[in-house]
């Protein structure tokens, strides 16, 4: 293939706001979507293993003994609202409003931290009820699944605080809006995983 033909193959994507790529879309965003697609398989494995062993524990405590639905509902609401503050942060940087970007990034990180604090409280309460990762099949599958999700949320908080710090130092100008969008995609993904966990694990008896 000649150099001219190769150059012709590379789409002119200037109107789409990123350097020319073979696919015509941003490579970084494409990588994040591919990563999120693969994460569906990871969380699918954890959720289906929980479902497979549900009702198979031969010793307690059982889910009905430890779940606190009103408390988890509030936690779920907090995480859901953090998705709103995340899109508002993206909207702010796209409008070149750096002050609001920082406010919404910090609000998202705080809501995420509240969710994690709730999860730590829930885990501690389960341990006080006698449920640990070693107690029974319910304990093993529950702690691994929700623990993995909690680690993802924690990594998201680290990402958000890094973006906030970059913005404070003037390293996150409006031209880098796509960086905030990509971090936002990850954040919304942990939210949709929790939507599934909340329904399948907590609400369906």
């Amino acid at each position: 293939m000649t150099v001219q033909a190769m150059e012709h193959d590379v789409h002119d994507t200037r109107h789409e706001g990123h350097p020319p790529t073979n696919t015509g879309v941003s490579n970084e965003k494409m990588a994040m979507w591919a990563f999120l697609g693969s994460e569906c398989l990871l969380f699918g494995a954890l959720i289906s293993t929980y479902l497979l062993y549900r009702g198979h524990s031969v010793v307690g405590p059982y889910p009905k003994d430890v779940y606190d639905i009103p408390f988890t509902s509030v936690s779920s609401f907090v995480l859901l609202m953090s998705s709103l503050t995340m899109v508002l942060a993206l909207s702010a940087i796209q409008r070149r409003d750096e002050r609001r970007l920082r406010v919404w990034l910090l609000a998202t990180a705080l809501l995420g931290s509240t969710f994690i604090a709730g999860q730590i409280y829930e885990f501690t309460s389960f341990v006080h009820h006698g449920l640990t990762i070693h107690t029974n099949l319910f304990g093993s599958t529950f702690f691994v699944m929700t623990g993995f999700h909690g680690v993802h949320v924690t990594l998201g908080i680290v990402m958000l605080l890094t973006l906030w710090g970059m913005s404070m130092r003037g390293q996150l100008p409006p031209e880098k809006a796509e960086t905030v969008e990509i971090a936002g995609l990850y954040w919304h993904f942990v939210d949709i995983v929790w939507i599934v966990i909340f329904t399948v694990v907590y609400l369906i008896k």
Partner: protein
Amino acid sequence: MTTTSTEHEYAEMNTETAHHTHPSEMVYVKVAAFLAAVTALEVLLSYNNVGGEHGTIAFLLILAAIKFGTVVAYFMHLRFDHPWFRRLFITGFVLAIGVYVAYLSTLHAFTGYTRKGP
């Protein structure tokens, strides 16, 4: 044109293009209010067995699917973005659903064949 100025030019266009294609802040707030209402409905349904045990499970799964789809479409902008992103995510999602439904069916998770505990 230098590399830096070209990158700057693309980045400038990035913010402008995104600003035109993504929904307004009011739409985001309405979507969040809708999600909060659906979550409240889910919790309400879980306490009242509407349509029996299977009916409640079906309702809860439908509501979770609606919330999932709404976040992906509006907050993750999959409804407005390039079809490539949609294809990538749907491929992973459908693959996960297919693999794990097959896995659970093989181990009789839906029929309760191997159930022993309470």
